[in-house]
């Protein structure tokens, strides 16, 4: 069960800046749809803000204002943010090459890219959903590109369970009363990709996704046999 303490510690660490990159990206995504977390973050920002008084003022380089004005004059640079996204993608590749990041960290940057794209674009095509234990521990998150209808499910803190496998589900009134299996999650916990072209994009936006822990080979009944973690897609803009 989530407690206020959990939310408060997460929010406090987010403001202090001590969350690792994966955690930070997940919190940044969660605050868009969790008012309690967002409020806790804002409270910590206000509590700690007086410390800014301890930082010496330093005049920025003279040309910086001109660069800002130039960016205002070419708003597409910032609205569509292709440069930033390109940078992040290169970053992800570099981190992968350096074999430094756990896959979750690199994946979190991809999540950050998704969120940025949503924020900047009027008609986003990328959506994210976070599967959590309670409200605190992110277990998986998924991204969907509605244009290609490709879904990617990435583990954050999910662990392999001997003799078990995770299974992904979709539920929606349009589909029927029972959730429909989208297949098994990769056992090595690498990102799992699914093509969802049989579903209408509007349905995908409204659907609930679930991940359940099943016997090896998947649910024998065609229905989830354990309590599933649920996620809804994060709307494009907040």
């Amino acid at each position, binding site marked *: 069960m989530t407690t206020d303490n959990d939310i408060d510690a997460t929010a*406090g660490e987010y403001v202090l800046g001590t969350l690792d990159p994966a955690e*930070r990206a997940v919190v940044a995504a969660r605050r868009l749809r969790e008012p309690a977390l967002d409020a806790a973050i804002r409270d910590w920002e206000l509590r700690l803000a007086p*410390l800014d008084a301890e930082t010496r003022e*330093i005049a920025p380089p003279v040309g*910086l204002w001109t660069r800002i004005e130039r960016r*205002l004059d070419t708003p597409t640079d910032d609205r569509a943010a292709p440069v930033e996204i390109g940078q992040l993608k290169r970053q992800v590749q570099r981190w992968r090459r350096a074999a430094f990041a756990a896959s979750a960290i690199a994946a979190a940057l991809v999540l950050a890219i998704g969120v940025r794209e949503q924020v900047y674009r009027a008609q986003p095509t990328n959506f994210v959903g976070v599967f959590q234990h309670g409200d605190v521990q992110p277990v998986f998150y998924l991204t969907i590109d509605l244009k290609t209808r490709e879904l990617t499910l990435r583990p954050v803190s999910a662990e392999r369970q001997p003799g078990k496998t995770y299974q992904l589900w979709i539920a929606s009134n349009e589909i029927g009363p029972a959730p429909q299996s989208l297949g098994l999650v990769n056992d090595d916990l690498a990102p799992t990709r699914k093509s969802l072209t049989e579903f209408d994009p509007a349905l995908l936006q409204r659907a609930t996704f679930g991940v359940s822990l099943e016997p090896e080979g998947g649910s024998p009944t065609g229905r989830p046999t354990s309590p599933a973690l649920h996620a809804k897609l994060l709307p494009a803009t907040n």
Partner: protein
Amino acid sequence: MPTTPDQLNDLIRRVAAADRVAFSGLYSATSAKLYGIVLRIVKRRDLADEVLQETYIRIWNNARSFDPTRAAAITWMATIARNRAVDEVRKVRPVALDDVGGVDEIEDPAMLISEQMELTADYVRLQSCLDALEPQRRDIVKLAYLEGRSREELGQLFGHPAATIKTWLHRSLKQLRTCLTT
């Protein structure tokens, strides 16, 4: 130079209406403060330049969402700058542990504050609550906030595993919150 809180509020209100002259005034009045905050976290001038640009673009784009009843203008702006700076420093690279500087980076705040800031009641209150923490834990909180130090870096500096730092941070935050709300 417009520096009173009311003047800053007024400038942001005009920036929200896409007033470039007001934006220029806002930049003149606040950029040194924000640049100081950002540079202290990202440490590199080239990164700080980029972060400061993005900070002001965000201020320009989000000025309408500023709520003067909720936070002082400078606090709102500093939060945007810090947030962006931490994003930058967390994404840049894995921590090179031999890269971590000494613990002597916390400057004497008294001097700075008398230099440039009035000693606000909020500051005094926060400082007294920080002083109620064990000295090492107080330094950890301040190094995280002011210098953008990660748990791993703090663990290296203080000779503890990152997991211990996390536990300490959580306890310190809890203690701070209690202290500040009573």
